[in-house]
């Protein structure tokens, strides 16, 4: 029993001592090295940021250097492909918004907590591969990490959900970094002047209508035109376009004409317009058959008009059905072709 006790205590003490010692040494050394490394990096970054309105252009090397751990600042990196040959439209759209946020942050004197970097595809292909990104723009947030061996933890900004607005992006960053970045859009004189003119225009129009435009408002032909137009637009699936934002048309491939979208529940902008026009022609034909033909005095002219209009209606209707068959191949009916 006693023997056991002694042995245990001795062991314990030695262990503790060693532990303390090693701890001491490592701590001191670490402190010196990492601390000033970080300090250097931060100052460098700050210098860069101040020069370029808060934006730090990165390439593969700079990226690794900036994101090397440990670091006491967090980093937002925009992976983009701004150069024209990629024709990345969203990249172009989002770029100013991003710069807006960065600028908003760079107004603050001490901007050492967070930095905004841009990595263009041309500059940093290797990084793109490393994060196996095949879509631009994408936006990553790297939080500050004091521990060198922690896994590469980052957070991805979801454009689909949060949208391309600078404000929402700023909120996203604030939520993660706990900072407060406010977006101040530069005053847009064009939009303002446009608003002014629009307002004036409406006022003028209202006044005109109030004074002598009464006839215009009360003319039922105007209203008929308006409502018929809207009806045509609606029944040709315009609201679908409003909500789903399909492409206007697509380059034709495998023989199918490009303006018809594949799939029954899918459509292109051009396609709907064609359909709307077809409807309009057919409807117009019907109207003229019932109201304008009986006004023709000479029998022969009348017969000609009837034949023409009937032909137009039949052809257009067959075209419409053809269209529909293109969307729904199993549709069995046809008129002319």
């Amino acid at each position, binding site marked *: 029993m006693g023997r056991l006790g002694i042995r245990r205590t001795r062991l314990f003490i030695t262990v503790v001592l060693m532990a303390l010692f090693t701890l001491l040494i490592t701590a001191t050394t670490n402190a010196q090295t990492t601390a000033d490394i970080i300090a250097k990096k931060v100052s460098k970054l700050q210098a860069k940021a101040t020069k370029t309105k808060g934006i730090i252009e990165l390439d593969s090397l700079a990226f690794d250097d900036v994101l090397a751990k440990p670091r006491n600042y967090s980093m937002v990196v925009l992976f983009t492909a701004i150069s024209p040959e990629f024709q990345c439209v969203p990249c172009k759209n989002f770029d100013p918004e991003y710069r807006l946020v960065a600028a908003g942050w760079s107004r603050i004197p001490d901007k050492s907590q967070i930095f905004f970097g841009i990595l263009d595809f041309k500059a940093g292909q290797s990084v793109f591969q490393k994060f196996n990104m095949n879509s631009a723009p994408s936006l990553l947030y790297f939080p500050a990490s004091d521990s060198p061996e922690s896994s590469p933890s980052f957070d991805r900004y979801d454009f689909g959900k949060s949208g391309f607005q600078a404000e929402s992006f700023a909120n996203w960053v604030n939520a993660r970094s706990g900072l407060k970045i406010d977006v101040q859009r530069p005053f847009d004189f064009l939009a303002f002047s446009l608003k002014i003119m629009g307002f004036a225009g409406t006022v003028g129009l209202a006044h005109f209508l109030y004074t002598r435009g009464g006839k215009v408002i009360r003319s039922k032909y105007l209203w008929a035109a308006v409502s*018929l137009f809207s009806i045509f637009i*609606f029944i040709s699936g315009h609201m679908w376009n409003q909500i789903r934002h399909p492409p206007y048309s697509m380059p034709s491939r495998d023989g199918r004409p490009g303006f018809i979208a594949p799939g029954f529940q899918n459509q292109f902008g051009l396609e709907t317009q064609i359909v709307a026009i077809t*409807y309009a022609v057919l409807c117009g034909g019907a109207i003229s058959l*019932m109201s304008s033909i009986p006004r023709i005095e000479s029998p022969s002219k009348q017969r000609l008009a009837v034949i023409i209009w009937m032909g137009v209606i039949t052809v257009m209707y067959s075209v419409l059905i053809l269209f529909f068959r293109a969307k729904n191949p199993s549709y069995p009916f046809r*008129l002319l072709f």
Partner: protein
Amino acid sequence: MSTESSSTVARVLKPTILILIAIVAISSRLFSIIRFESVIHEFDPWFNYRTTQHLVKNGFYDFWNWFDEKSWYPLGRVVGGTVYPGIMVTSALIHNVLHFFNFPVDIRNVCVFLAPMFSGLTAFSAYLLTKELKDSSAGLLAAAFLGVAPGYISRSVAGSYDNEGIAIFLLVFTFYLWIKAVKTGSAFFGLLTALFYFYMVSAWGGYVFITNLVPLHAFTLLLMGRYSNRLYVSYSTFCAVGTLLSMQIPFVGFQPTRTSEHMAALGVFGLLQLYAFAELVRGYIPPKQFRTLLRGGVVAVAVIASFGLTILSFSGVIAPFTGRFYSLYDTGYAKIHIPIIASVSEHQPTAWTSFFFDLQMLIFLFPAGVYLCFKELKDEHVFIILYSVFASYFAGVMVRLMLTLTPVVCVSAAIAYSTLLDTYLETSEHVLASTKPAIAAAATSAPTVIEATTSDSKATGKKTAAKAAAAAAAAAAAKSTDAEAKAHAKSAASSEKKRFPIFNLDSRLLVILQLTWFLFMFAWHCTYVTSGSYSSPSIVLASRQQDGSQMIIDDFREAYYWLRKNTKEDAKVMSWWDYGYQMAGMANVTTLVDNNTWNNTHIATVGKAMSTSEEVSYKVLRHHDVDYVLILFGGVIGYSGDDINKFLWMIRIAEGVYPNDVKETNFFTPRGEYKVDHDATKTMRESLMYKMSYYRFAELYGSGNAVDHVRNARMPAEGPTLSVLEEAYTTENWLVRIYKVKDLDILGRDLKDSTAFDKGRVRKVSSLKKK
């Protein structure tokens, strides 16, 4: 032909044709029964059916106060206060009447055949409505169109026992009464309108369409300076009585006084009163003072009204628009804010193909009809115009609102069509053109008439309809050879420039025959669409095999029957909300969530249980006393509507409430794809839904070439393992899979260990020693 003979012919023909149309309308909705069987269709109908059974069994008051303990466990659902009781009460009434006369009809058959029966009535009310707008021949055409238009059939085939089945009839009939009231200005018709409006409110949430359209009509008439005592009387009666009545439905309650959807009605009501008062005052004071008085009054009223409204809406007395309704205006709204609404398929926007699919030739005759309404712009035509524009907007935003568009399309298309026929059949202009045309008219009309009158029984589906329609037109035309035609001609002559008859017989023939041909095509189209697309009760699936023979997939009922027979009667079954109604109706088990999506949190909880790892979701399952979990899995037969495809919605809805437990992004691969095969994310592979779907799936194929036929993905050779659930039942085609939730281990081990032990694993030296 002489006056009285033709009129007697017409007097005989009209009812006959109407009856024929009704028969056609009903019989064309019976495809589903002929194909499958007399069964209640997809989802909501099962709830209506269940409640109807309850109503029939326990009487009205018990139904009225029914607290359903078997749904939304453990919250329960106050059924009486959260349903539109119209359809249940209707069918219960029919059932009781039949039984009173000793016709022992099963309530199920009443429910199955309710919608077709009402479609006949709908056709009739379409006739009445159009008769008010043009004449009886157009009415007959409208009836025929509406009787067979796929856009309406889609929701009213035999077995789809849903509110819309009767609501469309009520919609059309209410509008008819309203127009009648406006025309006659009689309080009686206003009252009738209110009564049927009440019926509509009790039947369908779509009554909001009426509450907004009728006031809009009145308002427009005011703007057009068409204020009249007729309008005042009819609208005041309708609005006062109708609002009061509608508040008697518990589900509606005080909404008419509070929510913005109903404000239009009240506002226009107030406006009318003011206007009437002004009119009254005008009669007593000189115009000059009156003008100043009017100005002041208008300004004052406007200020007060706007002020009051803002205060009320800010203080929350007037609720903002409800989500579903709001998503009609701001079309992007639902997608972002209310996934539960956006997830419903019938809330998607409408592509042009759907319009054509549902209305074929009517879709382009419809604007022509609207144009004609503009030409003779009476009050009722104004109504039709408004109806057309707004209905087509709403139909464009939501697929299910094609239903409200279809009637007006049929009506105005009928107007256009019959105008065409009139033009090309009419014989007697003021210039008595040679009798050839008359003969021509007779020639064209007579055969069709004969056909129509004789060919009701033998002909299938719509052919009769088309012929009936043609016959109707022809008959009308034949009749219109005198008085009416004269009147018409006179009005035309007086209203516009000089009109001539169609001189040549050949051009008449060309047009008439062509139009008749269009009618036939329309009929064929309707038959094709109805039989092909709209007649499958989605609880029984039919698929074609390679040899072309039809295979009936009946897995749903198989699974529900298993549940009904093999679980204790108070078993709680968790599933995604789509199947709640069916489970309650067919399996008679307690469900956690169902298609009445009134409690988003509860649904999100289920979503969480489905989309988290076993450990997390086991807590949820235990907490809600879940005994079984039911999922749909189409990977074997390639049924695309299964739960893995709905999974993203579950995740989104769950994330809305439990953002810390569920994250949508974790279910997407770094490349932003939604994968289930080898490169599915860890979160995906650990989620309960994934495990339940693919549990033992690979064994089905063996040697690691399991292929999911929906997402055609090659699955890993070794499938997921389950420890907190055990497979209870899987249907023939693996379409439905039911899992039993295990109890806690009796020895207090966690279930992973106990399952491993049962599989024969021996625990190695545990860490207990090393202390």
